[in-house]
């Protein structure tokens, strides 16, 4: 990693006076393969500030968001003595995974308008429906924060000499497939001054890929195969026990 930093430094020296302040960043890996024994993965995000223009304190924000999907949030209520699902609200789009890693507290680094513009903090990253849904989106965030799918890690981006930065993003074991958008922002005085985006591709590989593809593309064969395995296992166990006994 030290080598990568040195390389970035050299590149920066070679281009002394570009017009605009920018950010150069990369990931330790842009593909994550889910194998049968997958139990999470850690990705290193690293980069540097290009053509620093200001003396105002620098902030770095890194966000990783999984594929967005519509979510039905249901609320239970007591009716005739039993607890049943009563109200339901559809949240138009919520990322399956959303982690933000920053150098400072988000509210110190961004004005609310800038936060809304770049959809950075967790509530802003969720697109609620047209209805009045505050209570339901809060519940969605709470449940996903408790299960570790949503999180804000304040102060976990390491910034050196106001130029080089790096951070670790931990991807959990219960990851779903898809493209994970990774965004890197530089902030000064509550405003985003530079940004870059890249994608981490998460996909099943090997046996996992094969089973998943078979289940969706040849469902009948998959079903018959599942039954065949069940019957064979049932017979096998019976045969083994008979052998042991007799």
């Amino acid at each position: 990693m030290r080598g990568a930093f040195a390389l970035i430094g050299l590149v920066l020296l070679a281009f002394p006076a570009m017009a605009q302040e920018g950010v150069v960043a990369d990931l330790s890996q842009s593909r994550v393969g889910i194998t049968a024994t997958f139990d999470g993965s850690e990705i290193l995000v690293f980069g540097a500030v290009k053509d620093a223009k200001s003396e105002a304190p620098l902030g770095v924000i890194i966000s990783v968001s999984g594929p967005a999907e519509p979510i039905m949030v249901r609320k239970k209520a007591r009716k005739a003595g039993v607890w049943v699902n009563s109200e339901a609200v559809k949240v138009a789009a919520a990322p399956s995974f959303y982690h933000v890693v920053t150098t400072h507290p988000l509210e110190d680094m961004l004005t609310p308008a800038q936060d809304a513009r770049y959809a950075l903090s967790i509530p802003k990253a969720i697109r609620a429906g047209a209805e009045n849904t505050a209570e339901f989106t809060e519940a969605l965030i709470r449940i996903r924060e408790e299960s570790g799918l949503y999180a804000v890690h304040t102060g976990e981006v390491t910034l050196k000499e106001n130029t080089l930065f790096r951070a670790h993003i931990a991807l959990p074991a219960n990851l779903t497939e898809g493209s994970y958008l990774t965004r890197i922002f530089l902030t000064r005085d509550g405003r985003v001054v530079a940004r870059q985006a890249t994608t981490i591709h998460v996909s099943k590989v090997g046996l996992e890929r094969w089973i998943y593809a078979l289940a969706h593309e040849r469902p009948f064969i998959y079903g018959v195969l599942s039954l065949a395995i069940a019957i064979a296992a049932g017979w096998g166990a019976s045969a083994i026990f008979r052998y042991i006994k007799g």
Partner: protein
Amino acid sequence: MQIYLPIAEVSVNAFLLLGLGGLVGILSGMFGVGGGFLITPLLFFVGIPPAVAVATSANQIVASSFSGVLAHLRRKTVDMRMGVVLMVGGLIGAAVGVYVFNILRGLGQVDLLVTVCYVVFLGIIGTLMFFESLRAIRRSRNPGTKLPPRRKHGWVHALPLKMKFRTSGLYISVIPPILVGFAVGVLAAIMGVGGGFIMVPAMIYILGMPTKVVIGTSLLQIIFVTGFTTLLHATTNYTVDMALALLLLIGGVLGAQIGTRIGVHLKAEQLRILLAGMVMLVCGMLALDLLLKPSELYSLSVWGAR
């Protein structure tokens, strides 16, 4: 050892799943129930999405029931003829049940209906069986008291189309078994289980079959019902997880063999009282779930196709 399940898309401990399968397998072999009413809630608890849990437990039940049936076949405690008659009723019932289920799903609140169904049926069956077997045990302890004669000629025996069921030692009309099979088929499709816990008491108390024969015959019926369910889920919802099923059924088939061996060492009424106790326990847990205030009022589900 953590393992990532390809369809459920979660990572769980492989040994935990083996243990769960084994536990349910033992019960399956002992009592002739598929264990669907037990394993599905347990899988929810482990964190498997409900749709995958329901479909995959059907697949695992096929394995443990098959293993159990083979053990019973060798003991000649399976009434093949009765099994076929029940199955005819069962398949018609399952088709009607799927139809009813779809209507109810259109109305919403299908979860509530399923839970209420469980509580009502488990509660009634558990309580009836419990008291009946308690009486039976008391009777066997005091051999002095007069045994009430078994009703040899109830309404069940007054119907036409009689058939000889040699293994069960019965000569009765085929109408009651077909009706029992039908009722179980309907409920099984609505509640998403094999229906053994309804079938077993129905065979004992309505058809008057001997307890030992009931278990093997029930397992035979369960294989076909759950096999059919597995195929249906695999082709319509893509929710059968092969890796999850494999782990569960390795535990399940071994458990079923052990369960069958425990079962033959127990007396019929002991077996019945244990099953009754278990049925009442599950019923109580589900009822509490409905009556107590949940710690999290909200629940999430991904909307639309997966």
